[in-house]
Structures are given as structure tokens and as C-alpha cells.
């Protein structure tokens, strides 16, 4: 199994040989793909797994940390694949895959402190993983048993937000509060390339700049908003949007976990020290469909995907680890075993996830109660009981 096909198939790289992908990748790279980063793109680990330096951003991680990032990405991808499989089996109504975006999410997620706060979209399964959110929690809404429902304050990871862009304002407000509280915690808001067009996102930029709020705007430009390529949202690179609002923007190779981490750390450091917001555009690619309901063959070509497969975030780190003797067979086997355990737990957990009680419809509409809800709940309970009564009556 080669590095590329592994990435392409979205499977955990269990049988990967220590190939020499660098030259192969170069040889195969189609015209649209650039293996060397464009000058504006911050990169610390090339697609071929080679460490490079950048004048503004650097990182120095211990072997353990590097292995940790690798483990996070592999487990996240495995979880994602498992969820997609569960959707195909009818256990989930929908799944929004992060395939290809593991480095963007793990690199940024692992740059955060526990007291920082995350406002995700609906695709940040990797960030959730970094925050310690139980993966099962993420599946409730896709199964249809709740709309999210985890406690955001338990892991400082807000609920998934579906209305595009809304959460960037929540993040900004939260950051304003963190600032007023005199803490040095920061906030990170995830959003997509499509979301950049929403008024809310641009209003968030304005508020963040005006109040100098400690918020990082983390845009995963995965090149697509469902069927629309990024050119339908902007005619210049998205990171450039920030300057016009008065804060810095940077484009990072979103498939390079080291660069993402370095850039996010720098942004967080700025935020913590009162220097205000920053926009990070993680240049990446949505390897899969928008969601399991989507059919990307209608609007994009396979060769685009193939070109991006050569830049796979996991294989390049594996190559680096292998080349530098940082990952042996045992390490990889351990991750495989852990993946299997996690996948099993997720499968079983989902299948055993109880459907909500009918009357839960009326729960939590209000925190302090509401007469109409009480009345409707009572009437509906009575209506339902009438069937039970009738059934019981028949039974006699």
C-alpha cells in the first residue's frame, strides 16, 4: 500500500511501508498541485515529509509530542471513517467528514490551553478530539437523538453550529468576556471558506478588531463550500481579508500539522498578550463529499482530489517520523490497536444510544419554564396516555 493510496482511501495506515514518497510524489504531481509551498504559505513540513524552516514561524517539538500529533491524526481519521461507515449502515442520518483536514484541526487543537475556548462548525471532530470530548458525544446530532447536547463548559468546546458563520460572533463575544475577566485565555472560532462570505463573519472581524478581543479566526479553506469552489466566495486569498479589518492574517499549509501548530501558537500568544485577534487561513482540502448526502462527482474532478492526496497530512508526518527514527513498528501497532478499540467503542456506543423520550420535545425549551410549554406537554402526555389506555383496555 502506498502513501498516496492510503491517504486517498482514508484508511488508517496500518501496513504502510517505509517508502520513499518524496521523489514519487514529485514525479506524480499533476500540474495543479505545487509540492513546494507558495511563498505566502507557511510550511514547516513538506508533503514529502521534509522539515523546512520559515522566517516567521518555528516549532520545536519533542519526539513524544510529534508522535502525539501523529496519533491524534490517525485516531481522528479512524473515528471519521468509522462514523461514515455507521452512516452507511443506517446508524447515523448524516455525517460530515473531516477527511484531509486532520492536520488543520489537530495542529490548532493541540496548540490550545485547557482554559482556551473553542467555537467549532459541524466538522471539527479533530478539534473535539484534542479537547477530550467523547467522540460519542459528537454522534448524537448526526444520529438524530439530540442537537449536540454536550456540556460546552466541560471541555471548553462549544456545541457544533450549523448556521454558517454564526459562531464567529459567539466566539468574539466570549473573548470580549474573557478579556473583561482579566484572564489571558484565548478563544478560537472555526469556520469554512464558504462562511467567509457571511455578514456575521465580517461583523465578527469588526467587533474583534474594535474591542481588541483575544480571538483567533481559524478558517479551514478546504477549497469547497458544498459544490462551490472558493472563487465563488472571494477573488483574493482569504487570509488577506484580515488586514482590512486591522489585524494580521496568515495562510498556513493546512495539511502540515507542524506549521498549523506553530502559527496557531503564535496567534494565541498575541491574543494572550493583548495584541488582539488574528486570522489563520489553513489551506487544505475536503477529500470527501461535503456530507454523506452529497455527490461531489457532479461538480469536481477526480484529479484535483488526487493532487491533494499527495499532500496528505498524515503520510507526511509518518514519513518524517520514520525518516528520523521516531516511530517504530511497535508505536504504529499500538496506534492501530488503539484505533480498533476506539472504533469498537464508537460502534457499540452508537448502536446503544437510546432514543430520547418523546416528552423530551418539551424539555429545555426554557430554563425558567413557560406556561404554554407546560400546557402543551401536559396535553400531549394525556393524548399519548389515551393510546396506552386504549391498548390496555383492549388487552382486558
Amino acid at each position: 500500500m502506498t502513501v498516496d493510496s492510503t491517504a486517498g482511501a482514508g484508511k488508517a495506515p496500518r501496513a504502510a511501508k517505509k517508502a520513499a514518497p518524496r521523489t514519487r510524489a514529485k514525479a506524480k504531481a499533476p500540474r495543479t498541485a505545487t509540492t513546494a509551498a507558495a511563498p505566502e504559505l507557511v510550511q514547516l513540513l513538506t508533503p514529502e515529509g521534509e522539515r523546512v524552516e520559515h522566517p516567521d514561524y518555528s516549532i520545536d517539538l519533542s519526539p513524544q509530542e510529534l508522535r502525539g500529533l501523529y496519533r491524534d491524526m490517525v485516531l481522528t481519521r479512524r473515528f471519521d471513517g468509522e462514523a461514515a461507515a455507521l452512516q452507511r449502515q443506517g446508524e447515523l442520518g448524516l455525517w460530515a467528514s473531516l477527511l484531509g483536514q486532520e492536520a488543520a484541526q489537530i495542529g490548532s487543537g493541540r496548540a490550545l490551553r485547557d482554559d482556551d475556548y473553542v467555537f467549532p462548525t459541524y466538522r471539527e471532530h479533530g478539534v473535539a478530539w484534542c479537547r477530550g470530548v467523547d467522540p460519542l458525544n459528537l454522534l448524537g446530532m448526526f444520529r438524530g437523538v439530540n442537537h449536540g447536547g454536550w456540556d460546552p463548559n466541560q471541555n471548553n468546546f462549544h456545541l457544533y453550529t450549523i448556521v454558517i458563520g454564526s459562531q464567529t460572533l459567539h466566539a468574539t463575544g466570549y473573548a470580549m468576556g474573557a478579556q473583561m475577566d482579566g484572564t489571558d485565555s484565548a478563544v478560537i472560532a472555526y469556520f469554512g471558506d464558504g462562511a467567509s462570505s457571511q455578514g456575521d463573519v465580517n461583523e465578527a472581524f469588526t467587533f474583534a478588531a474594535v474591542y481588541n478581543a483575544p480571538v483567533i479566526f481559524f478558517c479551514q479553506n478546504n477549497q469547497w463550500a458544498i459544490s462551490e469552489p472558493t472563487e465563488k466566495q472571494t477573488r483574493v486569498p482569504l487570509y488577506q481579508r484580515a488586514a482590512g479589518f486591522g489585524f494580521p492574517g496568515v495562510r498556513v499549509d493546512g495539511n502540515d500539522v507542524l506549521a498549523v501548530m506553530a502559527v496557531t501558537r503564535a496567534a494565541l500568544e498575541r491574543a494572550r498578550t493583548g495584541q488582539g485577534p488574528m486570522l489563520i487561513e489553513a489551506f487544505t482540502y475536503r477529500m470527501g463529499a461535503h456530507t454523506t448526502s452529497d455527490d461531489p462527482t457532479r461538480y469536481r474532478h477526480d484529479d484535483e482530489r488526487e493532487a491533494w492526496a499527495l499532500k496528505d497530512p498524515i503520510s507526511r508526518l509518518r514519513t518524517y517520523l520514520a525518516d528520523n527514527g521516531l516511530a517504530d513498528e511497535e508505536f504504529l501497532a499500538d496506534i492501530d490497536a488503539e484505533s480498533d478499540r476506539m472504533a469498537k467503542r464508537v460502534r457499540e456506543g452508537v448502536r446503544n444510544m437510546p432514543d430520547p423520550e418523546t416528552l423530551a420535545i418539551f424539555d429545555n425549551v426554557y430554563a425558567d419554564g413557560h406556561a404554554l410549554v407546560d400546557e402543551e406537554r401536559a396535553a400531549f402526555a394525556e393524548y399519548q396516555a389515551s393510546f396506552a389506555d386504549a391498548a390496555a383496555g383492549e388487552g382486558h
Partner: protein
Amino acid sequence: MTRMPIVKALNTSLRKALETDPKVLIMGEDVGKLGGVFRVTDGLQKDFGEDRVIDTPLAESGIVGTAIGLALRGYRPVVEIQFDGFVYPAYDQIVTQLAKMHARALGKVKLPVVIRIPYAGGIGAVEHHSESPEAYFAHTAGLKVVTPANASDAYWMLQQAIATDDPVIFFEPKARYYDKGEVSTEAIPDPLHKARVVAEGTDLTLAAYGPMVRVALEVAAAAAEDGRGIEVVDLRSLSPVDFDTLQASVEKTGRLVVTHEAPVFLGMGSEIAARISERCFYHLEAPVLRVGGFHAPYPPSRLEDEYLPDLDRVLDAVDRALAF
């Protein structure tokens, strides 16, 4: 006469409109190559080009706002909002601009903009994909609001909406997209804002629209087995509502049940109950009963069957009304 599902009837209607009027445009997220997430615009960009079938940036206020500008320039934009729950970013443009501009100009400009919204539930979707926000629009002067319940109406009402010189909010019952029906592209259609009696009966009137018409017809069939004649009225238009047709039916039956998926509190049923209670004060033998969604956010999909008014819940109200 061709038998086709609602989604195809809509597609055919849009194609017809693009063919016959060069000023008609289609705008929205993913309406181009993808043909919309429900394929209502399937194949149209291929045949009419990117200038007539326009993939827009992901910004609903921008879509409606630019559609207004295009209408001012003489175009007739047909806007797609991807799902009911995503119309709200455009609410300001709809309520303060689209609805009011004709009056603001003392009639000197017209705003022939159609906003198509796949709405209502029953498709097992995640949050924001199953809502019924029609009352927000019907309460707004300056807008017209309609919703077809079958393929023929889907075809014709969309033709009529596009031909209207006023803004029309066009609600498409997404759970019924694959319901098939006969469509004649030759027939002379009913007026856009006329309600239609779709089942006759003398014991009780059951008013419904959009996705609930199918349920209402099932209710009538079930009641018929018990020897009760339910007259089903498909409202079709929610602004204006054809109260005359409804009144005539209620004067005959003496009883009215209204059903919709939207929450009951301040839903369409409230206006219908209020007005029919007034118009038919001496004819009503029972209060107007309403069966609809609850005063709660649309629930997670595993609860939607319980949340949505169904055969049993509507029958229960019918029984209660008849028992009065």
C-alpha cells in the same frame, strides 16, 4: 399530461420560465453544477449558462439583496434558499426592503422576486433543516406566500409566482418532493391565491397546506371508513388566504380543524381560527381546533414523528370537534 414528482415539476417549471422570459434568473447556493441540494435546478445551468443560473456566495442577505437590485434593473430573479432554517440571515432584506420597496416608491418600482424555500420536516435531517417559518412571512405586508402540495400545483404555482409583479415566498414541502402527480403544461390553472377543496364532505372541514395536505387526505379516508365526511381544503396560498372558500365549506360543515407543521402558537391556524370564528360565528358547532407543531424548537429527527401532526393527532382533533 405527464406523471412526475414535485421536484421534477418544479424543475420543468423553472426551465419553462428561463426559456420564455430572458429576464428570469435563478440564484442561490449550489444551484449551478450541483443543481441544488434537492436537484430542483438540475441541468439548468448547463443549458442556460452561468449568467442565468447563478451560483452565489454563501450569504443569504447578499443573495436576496442583490436579487432586489437585479429586479430593479428589470430582471425577475428566482432565489433558492437552501433550507428553511437558513432564510433568517436574509430576513432583514426580505422584510424591510423586498416587502416594502414597492410602497416606498409609491408604486414606481416593482419587485418581481420569487424566493423558493424547501420547508417543513419529515426527512430525518439535522437541526435547521425541517422548519416551517411561513407565519413570519405571511404576517409581513408586501409579501405573498404560497405553497403547493402536489406536482401540478408545483408546476403552475411556480409559473404564476414568477409572473407575479410582487415578491412571492414560495414554500416547497421538501418531504413531498418525490410525491408523483399528473402535470399538464396545457391546462388552465386555478388562480394562484385560490384555495381548493380536494375532498368533499359535510361533517367537518379540515384545512391544510403543503406537506399536511397528504395527511389531511389520509384523515378524510380514515374518517370515511367510520362514515364521517371530511371536507379537505388545500389552502395553497397563505398570503392572501382564500377565506371565502374556507367560509363556504365551514358554513356547510359547521366544524373546522386546521393543521400545519409549524408551531400552533401564532401559526397560520391562529389567523384562520380567528377569522373563521368571526365569519362563521353562527355556523360553528364546535370551536376551531388546531393541530400543529409544539412551542419548542424542531426536535432531533428521532423525535420528529412525534412532533409532527400525523394521522392520529389530526383524527383526535376531528373526533373532539365532532364530539362537541
